[in-house]
């Protein structure tokens, strides 16, 4: 394999992997948009969904990608429940209690998962796990390609919802100015329930994707939350496609970084890029600075 095609291979893998960060980032950015908190437990929920998929697959033999259809309504309801049961009351007390609650939820989920499923890494092995599609010297893993397509589809659905439906527009408006939205009759409670439902459902999608492509353990999620946060910072808040692009960019950066320097540097590179973006372009790489009028 020539250096050139190896590099293209790295780029493709980066894009495919990054799309998963992107899906997690959209959820994070939605919840941040309406509640103004970083839902740090997002990664733990993703791992929960991965275990959910693993569990369903092991018990029933249901194809992991079909498990998505099961996962979506379940995690949507879970998101609604997390807001109604936990965050609604706490949010009234301010942002810091909500942030602490999210942190507590993360620790609780991690420990619950390690209790139920043991802290050993799990992975799903199906007949197609190792299947690759060959394009000349380039190999594309079937599962990673599926993950990419699912990520694009999920992003597209969220985008259409936000752009075309009245509730989607209400969420966009409320993320910009919750008080103004409530003066128009848009209930903050329902907006928050909705962003939590969609955000957690997207975590479910990312979880199914994780389960089919990578081994995972109960503590893998925290890093995922951080990566999603970096993707949000790249993409700029409040933009669905921006968050996806941010995730893909992060995937590329990590892939190229590990190839050119070494695998151990991948995280350092992404955090350094994160700090640079926050310092130089806090509105995100693709975002326009909104003019204060």
């Amino acid at each position, binding site marked *: 394999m020539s250096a050139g095609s190896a590099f293209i291979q790295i780029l493709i893998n980066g894009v495919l992997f990054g799309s998963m960060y992107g899906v997690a980032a959209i959820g994070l950015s939605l919840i941040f948009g309406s509640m103004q908190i970083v839902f740090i437990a997002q990664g733990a929920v993703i791992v929960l969904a991965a275990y959910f998929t693993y569990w369903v697959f092991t018990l029933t033999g249901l194809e992991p990608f079909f498990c998505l259809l099961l996962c979506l309504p379940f995690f949507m309801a879970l998101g609604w429940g997390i807001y109604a049961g936990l965050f609604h009351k706490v949010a009234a007390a301010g942002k810091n209690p909500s942030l602490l609650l999210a942190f507590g939820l993360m620790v609780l989920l991690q420990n619950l998962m390690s209790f139920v499923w043991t802290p050993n890494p799990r992975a799903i092995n199906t007949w197609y796990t190792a299947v690759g599609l060959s394009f000349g010297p380039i190999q594309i893993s079937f599962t990673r390609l599926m993950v990419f397509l699912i990520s694009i589809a999920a992003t597209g659905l969220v985008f259409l919802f936000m752009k075309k439906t009245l509730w989607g527009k209400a969420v966009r408006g409320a993320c910009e100015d919750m008080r103004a939205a409530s*003066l128009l*009759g848009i209930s903050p409670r329902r907006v928050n329930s909705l962003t939590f439902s969609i955000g957690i459902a997207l975590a479910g999608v990312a979880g199914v994707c994780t389960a089919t492509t990578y081994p995972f353990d109960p503590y893998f999620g925290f890093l995922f939350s951080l990566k999603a946060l970096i993707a949000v910072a790249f993409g700029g808040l409040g933009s669905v496609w921006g968050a996806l692009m941010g995730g893909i960019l992060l995937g590329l950066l990590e892939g190229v970084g590990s190839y050119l320097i070494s695998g151990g540097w991948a995280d350092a590179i992404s955090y350094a890029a994160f700090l640079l973006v926050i310092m130089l372009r806090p509105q995100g790489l693709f975002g326009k600075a909104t003019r204060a009028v």
Partner: protein
Amino acid sequence: MYPLLEVTQLSVFYGDAQAVWEVSFHVEKEKMVALVGANGAGKTTVLNTISAVLRPSKGRIFFRGQPLAHHKPEDVVTLGISHVPEGRRLFSRLTVLENLELGAFPARTRPFFRESLDRAFRLFPVLKQRIHQQAGSLSGGEQQMLAIARAIMAKPVLLMLDEPSLGLAPVMVKLMFQIIQALNREGATILLVEQNVHQTLEIADYVYVMKTGRMELEGHGQDLIRNPDFQRAYLGMIG
């Protein structure tokens, strides 16, 4: 008959600081009533309390004879009170049309969406030309028009406007007052908060004057203009 809006003995605090002291006033149906006064007089606080953004510590607010208590802002607009807040608070990243669509968010107003949209464009033709532009890209005057248009999309019985002339060029201020007057003639009851005392006195049916959180004076515009105390304090005349 009870007035459309009646506020009695209203007191409002921000934490320990009292901003409004036992303020009472009322707004009759289809009238234009103005609250005027200097910066910090408590006018905005009164509007925010009516639309349930703030909670009064004392006093009551009646709308159509019913007490407004334990309501949330999103319920108040459903009852028929629309509030155009200070600083307009448009959704700057949404288009003009999307802002107007959200104006008609309450379920009871959605069936009239087309009708309301036509009315908004008739009152503010310039918005129709900007329909797919982001609200943040409009000029100050256009933004104020959009803010009012968005509020009337909810078909309010009572329209509360907080400083609609703030920061606008003089010619735009004049236009804004004409539009407010036109809305009133079409049957909308208006509660107007303004610092632009001169023009407010000319168009309002009845004027309340607030000073440091208390009701200071009240009267018909023409009577206030002739009142020497009022002249000295608010019209800059040396009597």
